[in-house]
Structure formats: C-alpha cells, structure tokens
C-alpha cells in the first residue's frame, strides 16, 4: 500500500539582503579608514521596518479617534453610558487565542528551520486555526452590533453608540485586512516559498490587532 508522504512546507531562511548579491540592504557603516571590504553590516529585511511604519500609522489613527472621544465627551452633557455587550469579552478571548495559535505556528516554523523533518508539526494547521479565530472574532463583533441594535442603539443614537460602532468597525476592518494578509501567508506556504520575514511581519501585525483591541476594550469600558 503506497502512502503519500506529505510535502513539507517550504520555508526560507531570513536572507541577509545586501552583501554580494546586489544593491541595497546595508545599514550605517563607513569605517574611517575607508576599508569597505571590512563592512559586513547588513540591514534586516525591509519588511521589519515597514511593519513598524504601518503600525505607527494605525496607532496615530486610533490616537486621533481617542482624542476625538475625549473631546466629544467634554463638549456636551449628553454622554449616556452604555453597557458593553457581553459577547465583546468572548471576542476578546477569541482574538487573544488567535495570537496564541499564531505563535504556535511560528514555533513550529522555527523547529522546521532547525532541521527537524517532523511532518506532524504542520505549521499550516495552526495558521488555519488563527484564520478561523479571526473570522469568529469579526463575526462576534457583528453580533455585538446586532445586540446594540436590539437595544435601540444605532450609529447616530447618541455619541457613545457612535463611538462604539466607529471604533469597533474600524478595528474590525483592520482585522479583515489582516485576514487577507494571512491568506497570503498561507498561500505562500503551500504554493511557493514562505519567507521567515513575511511570517514574522504578519505576526507583528496580528498581535498588534490583539493589543489594539484590548486597548479599545478598556477605552470603551472606561469611557463609554
């Protein structure tokens, strides 16, 4: 009976960009004696910097929303505290769990890099779980909106509900964007070659979505 040995996922070492393979990819250097042959100071892959740029932009956006919330609260006496739908807490656990499963996937990738050819490790599986949890989170957020609607709280009902919908919606949109990215990562893993830096970069984004959500939850709980 023939058994098919599953093809191990192709994962690439983080390459040192620069060096002798082409242009670009160096950090600060220039020895004073001008001996450039001695320079080996390679820069990490640009995606590592790129993700921080993206996260900085997203942080500023939510900082702007936060300051708008604070100013709006002080602008009028129409702040009606709303009770957060319970499902939000469940959604929080789901999102944090997805960060855990993502980390599990990354650990397996690291083991793979170490040379182990244990096909049971299957890092792809944990990426699927992460994606599923992400979808559950977004669905759960939608349920939270439905619950608010059933209480008669719509987008324009009062400023609290406005900010609730706005903040959760913008966050959920970013999570959806992250799911698109996760699809890309999974595709690369199965079809072509997944670079370690791609997975790492995606992980930073995804974990940031979790941290951001915890921050928003606290903000909503304290302020709304």
């Amino acid at each position, binding site marked *: 009976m023939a058994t098919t040995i599953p093809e191990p996922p192709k994962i690439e070492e983080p390459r040192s*960009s*620069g060096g*002798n*393979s*082409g*242009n*670009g*990819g*160096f*950090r*600060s*250097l*220039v020895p004073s004696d*001008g001996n*450039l042959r001695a*320079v080996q100071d390679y*820069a*990490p*892959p*640009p*995606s*590592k*910097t*790129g*993700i921080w*740029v*993206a996260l*900085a*932009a*997203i942080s*500023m*956006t939510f*900082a*702007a*929303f936060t*300051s*708008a919330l604070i*100013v*709006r609260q*002080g*602008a*009028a*006496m*129409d702040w009606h505290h709303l009770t957060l739908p319970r499902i939000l807490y469940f959604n929080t656990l789901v999102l944090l769990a997805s960060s855990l499963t993502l980390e599990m996937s990354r650990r397996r990738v690291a083991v793979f890099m170490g040379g182990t050819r244990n096909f049971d490790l299957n890092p792809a599986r944990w990426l699927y779980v992460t994606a599923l949890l992400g979808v559950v989170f977004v669905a759960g957020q939608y349920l939270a909106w439905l619950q608010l609607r059933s209480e008669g709280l719509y*987008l*324009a009902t009062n*400023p609290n509900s*406005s900010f609730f919908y*706005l903040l959760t919606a*913008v966050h959920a949109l970013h999570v959806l964007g992250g799911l698109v*990215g996760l699809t*890309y*990562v999974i595709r690369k893993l199965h079809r072509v070659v997944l*670079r370690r*830096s*791609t997975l790492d*970069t*995606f992980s930073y*984004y995804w974990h940031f979505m979790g941290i951001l959500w915890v921050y928003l939850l606290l903000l909503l709980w304290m302020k709304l």
Partner: protein
Amino acid sequence: MHDMSAHAAAHQGPPTSFVRKYIFSLDHKVIGKQYYGLGLAAVIIGMVLSWLMRIHLGWTNYPIPGLHLLSKSGAAGDVMTPEFYLQLMTMHATFMVFFVLTVAPFAAFGNFFLPIHVGAEDMPFPHFNMMSFWVTFVAFCVMVSSFFVGDGPTLGGWTQYAPLSAVGAVAGPGEGAGVVLWATSIAIFCVGQLLGTLNFIPNVLDLRCKGMSLWRMPLPTWAWFITSCMGLTAFSVLMPACIMLILDHVAGTSFFVASNLVINDQLQPHSGGSTLLWQHLFWFFGHPEVYIAIVPGMGIISHVLITNMRKPMLSHRVIVYSLGALAVLSYMVYGHHMFVSGMNPLSSLLFSFPTLLITIPSTILVLIWIGSLYGAKLRINSASLFALGFISMFITGGVSGFFLAQPSIQILLHATYFVVAHFHFTMAIAAIFGIFSGTYFWFPKMWGRMMNETLGKVHFWCSFVGVYCIFMPMHYLGLAGNVRRYQAFVVDYMQPLVGVHRFITIAALFTGAAQLIFIYNFIHSRFWGEPAPDNPWQGTSLEWSTPSPPPHDNFGGRHVVVYHDPYQYGVQSSTGDYVMQDSPEQVQTAHEEP
C-alpha cells in the same frame, strides 16, 4: 504582508507587456513619472480655477464666456454665482495642496530618485508602491467627480470647517454630495500617501548600498525621509477626521455639530458635537501638511544649488537638523490657525511661542543657503534660477509669518489676504518653484532628453516677476482689512481695494499664460529634446552615475559602492572639479565637511 524585496522584483527581469510597463508598473521610476503626470494634470486644473476666481474678483458681475459649461447651476448666463466662486476656490486649494504640492515634490520626485540616491534597485514593497499611485489616482477621480454631481463640489474651503461641512445640503448649495465626495476623496488620498511612506522609510533605513551611510545621503533624500515621517503621523489623523465628517454628514452622528442649530428655520437634528474638534484634528494634520509640501522642495533646491555652485552647502548636517527641527516643531504650532477660533485664549499664547520659535530653523536654512552662495561659482540655468527664486520667495513668506505668529496681530490679520499672501509665498509658489527647479534639473535623467534652456529662462522670468506681482499686493490688502474667501467686495471699506484686485488678476492671467511656455517645453523636449548624457550637470550623487534614463534596475546590475560624501565639489579629480559618490578615486577635498 508583502515582502517582495527589491531583489526579487529586480531578479524577475524587466516587464514586457504594455500594461506592466506603463500602467500597473512596479518600477518606482514609472510610478514617479505617473505621479508627476498626476501633479501636472492637477496643477493645470488648479491654475485654471484660479484664473476664473481672479477674473471674477476683479470684474464681479461680468460674464465669463463658456463658464456655463463648467457648472449646471453655478453660472447661468456665464455669470459666476457666489456659491460657484466658493466652489472654485475650494477646489483650487484642494487640488493644489493635495494633488500638486504633496504629489509632485514628494511622491513624484521622491519615488523616482530616492532608491537611486541610496543605491537601491527599487522600493522595498513595489506592489504597495504601485497601489499607492493608483489609490491616489482614484482619490483624484473622486475629487474631479464632485464637479458633476448634484449642485456641484463642496464650497467649504479646503479646510472644510464644521458645522458648515457637516450639516448637509441644508446649509446651501455645494454642501450636499460634494462634501461627501471631498471627504471620501481625501480619506482615500491619505491611504495612498501612507502606502507611499511605507515604502520611503524602509528604503532609507534598510536598502542603502554599501558605503552609503545616512550622512552620505544627498539632501533631497533626507528631505523625503523627513517628509515621510511627517506624512506617517499627519495623514493618519486626517483620515479619521474625514470619516467622522462623512458620518456626521450622511449618518446623522454629531461628532462636530452642536445642539440647537437652526438653519433655514429648521432645527437641526444633531446635538452635542464639538465645533472646535474638527479644527483641532484638521490642523494637527494641516500644519505638518504645509511642511510636507515645502520640505522636499527645500531638499531639491539645495541639491540643485550645490551642483550649480560647484561647492557643498556650508553645513550638510545643519540643513538636515533644521529640516528635522521643522518637522518636529510643526506638530506643536498648529493652533496658530485657531488663535481667534474660540479656543482657550491661553492656548493661543501657548501655540504662538513654538510658532515664533519655528522661525529659527527656517532662518538657519535661509542663512545657510545664502551663506553657501558666498564664494561660489554659480552657474545660471533654469534649474538654478528657480532654486534661487525659491529662496527669495521663502524669505518673503517667512517674514510675513512674523506677523501671523502673534495672536494680538492676528486680531487684525486673521482671515485676511495677508494670510493668503503668506501661505502662497511660503508654501505654494516656493514649492512650485522647487518643482520647476527639480524638473529642469532632473528632466534629462527622467526622460533622457534635455529641456530647452532658453524657453526655461523665459518661463522663469515671467513666473518670478509674475508671482511677486500677484502675491505681494495681497499683503497690503490684508493690512487694510480685506477679508478672504469673499466672492465680491460689497463692504464699504473694501471698495477702494478693487483696483488692487484688478492688478492682481492681470498679473495672474499673465503668469498663467507664461506657464504654457513650460508645458510646451515639457512636451516638446519629451519627444524631440536633445538626447541627454549621463551627467549633464557634472553632479556627484548616484543618479548621475547611471544612464539617462536609468535602466530597469537602476544601475544595470552593477553593485554600487559609495566612497564619498554626497557633495564633493571644489576638488581636483580626474573628472574635473568634482568626484562622484561611487568613484573609488581618492581626492583631497577642498572644503572640510563640518
């Protein structure tokens, strides 16, 4: 997340299909040229709108032939209605600030030259870079479309103050769908520019070639880097503001609209919103934005001047530090747009001090530029003329800032033509001169042909004298109390000023006509100009070490190694009085780089 590093993109080889080469190109050089084209289209639109505005201001109730073609309701009998004037004004500013001043000096030249300046093959994320252009293009289309909907584009000024912008069509013509389209377009624009900064910053930090330390980067590169950092934190604040504005407008929320407002005898349904919140959010973006508009120009003209002076600036580092100081301080000064807005008067004083202090880096820059001219061997050509013109303009604009930085003086000058003069000098025409300087300088590299020098000089003379004739009198109008954003002057005390407006209009039309010389020169040179050598200006930075135009991977597979600081002029080398950055030749520098 994408991680198509420059290597992967380059190693795939140059594209072959027409679509991949010219339309959905991943090549930063093509993207830069696409941005340039977008900027050119936008500046033509913005300029034509300004002609219409100026004609109306000088000759208010006169018909302008053909005007009815531009608006369904705003120009019956070719006479401009008050609302149409305001719509044209709003669109003029919007196209100019966003689609010209942010796009051309930063996205266009930056995309083309930043990777080359640091010795890289491309931007780090070419797919995101391509997206950044097309997203910006979509934003442009959405903005243009607002001319064709309902009662036309928004009339609330590029500043779109709430509640006028937020309450909807009840506030009058131009406040309906036009506002939603404006805010949508700008939100999309912010996304496009953020995708750009996503490429620029890692390119500078991670993709420099061997030997290219940060201090060896040429000045435009520093300027683009600093601008990207500003853009990162500024556009990401405008976008949420626009989202909230759209929600107030279409979804009945009350972020910016207070209670108990009555328009047209109708009590508005909004309640509790904060009028000033919009202003705070907008200007937190808005002030860095004006520096985003001018800092690349400062880098570009420094670069152009150094090449044409045949000597480096007095201090490379001081220029970089000053640009950085401008960027940092730009976040602390935004309240100077709001001195009399009704915010706490103490805040006004608090904002005025950093505003006065920001004079210092600006002055340092001007003094370094002028001081560097001392002892130079200045070549006069179109590029250097526009660069020198930039300095003159920036001085004028900066000096008028002394007045506007003080709350007590703004009591007289707020919302008058003095402000219009100030920002046109510092931001608009200085930046445009920076764009022209960059164009004349870099056209050979970008399109492989030389522009016509004589036409360039004629263009310069008409423009330089012209813009001074347009904008210098506006200072006097402001001092006399001429309020801005008025479509006509029916106020008694403004009657004596109409003659000045007519003078300005004539100057504007003349200067506008002179731009046709540039457009003709551009198009003609693009197809029939003299083929350009690799290094027509004997420059030292890396763009001159590669053919005109550069090959697909910028350096033809060559591994660029940089041995020198960017501006080694005034030396004795095998090439003459300069040594290129990537030349291994060791030379005795004539100047000590401090």
